[in-house]
């Protein structure tokens, strides 16, 4: 049996494609698994909110646990590092205003996440 027929059969090709896919996926994960979350908190008018408390919670199959908290900066920005979750919840509060809790389902644990839309504080 020559090497061509050994390599170019459906068994070898299927295993090869699976191994290649797993390798590419792992490479992608290793580049994007710093666990960085970045986003902004704004008020109803779209103005950045300084000093709001942003809470990061973990969503498991059976519970919701608090993981970390941070304060927004001068332009309403916030960030978390090394969150270590694959399903998480973000919420923001300041005084009587509160942003509804938002759920994020990630593709892998500790995936980097940039929020497309800011958290909006509602009175």
């Amino acid at each position: 049996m020559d090497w061509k027929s050994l390599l170019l059969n459906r068994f070898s090709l299927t295993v090869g494609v699976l191994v290649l896919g797993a390798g590419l996926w792992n490479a992608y994960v290793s580049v994007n698994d710093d666990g960085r979350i970045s986003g902004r908190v704004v008020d109803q008018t779209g103005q950045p909110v300084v000093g709001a408390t942003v809470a990061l919670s973990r969503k498991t199959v059976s519970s919701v646990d608090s993981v970390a908290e941070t304060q927004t900066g001068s332009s309403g920005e916030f960030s978390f590092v090394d969150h270590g979750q694959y399903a998480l919840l973000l919420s923001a509060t300041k005084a009587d205003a509160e942003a509804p809790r938002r759920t994020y389902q990630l593709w892998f644990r500790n995936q980097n996440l940039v929020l497309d839309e800011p958290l909006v504080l509602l009175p």
Partner: protein
Amino acid sequence: MSLRSRIFTHAILISVCFFMLLPIYWVIKTSVSGENLFVYPPSIIPADPNMFYYVEAWYTVDFVQLFSNSFLIATLVVIVNLVLNAMAGYALTKHFPGKSLVMSFLLMSMMIPFHATIIPAYLLTAELGLLNSKLGIALPALSHIVCILLFKSNFEAVPSSLIQAARLDGLSEWQILTKIMIPLSKPAVATNIILSFIWSWNEFLWPLIVVRSPDQQTMPLGLVSFLASFEDTTGSLYAFCVLVVLPSMLVFLLAQKDFIRGLTSGATKG
């Protein structure tokens, strides 16, 4: 066959396929939508499908450990099955005193369900010190009588003149088996691989009895621990079910042509 009867046959086959594939479709649909099974009216197309339940299933149980355990055991079972069954099948093509007795014994053994022999099998495994080990899980599946008989019928289909010519050329029995019989019985080899792989992969009762520690658990046992740990996890549970059956389905789909040929060749040539 006339056009009308052909259409009728195909209509029946398509409807049978529909009913057989519907549960599989439903499992896949639930695994991407997480919809409760008892929702009425049931939705045929998943609403807001996503792959998150697969991610959740992956992290909820130690998937890599379960998968590698199942894969190692199934690989061991397949390799040993091929060696033992081919040797036994070849031996049974020969004439020797007591052959019919051996055949009767093998056929009778097939009639006894594994559940009836599970206690002696357990005691034997314990005596060998193989409880809670991969080899212990694989032990009862290392040879299947069905596969021995499959090899036997395939080997009997090989022309005896070919074997005699090989013998005249100075080949030993082992060489005849490995260089002539097995290469000419590829469908039997494929059938053996599929059957032993699927049986080993799906085996639940025996691993449940011999496995004590989580690091030796196989995929079906992982499914049970998944069920035991969490109750309201429809999507993740079904996603895990898909991940459990996917490898055996893949093996079957890859070798189905040879599998069907392997099951039928002995019957037509023998």
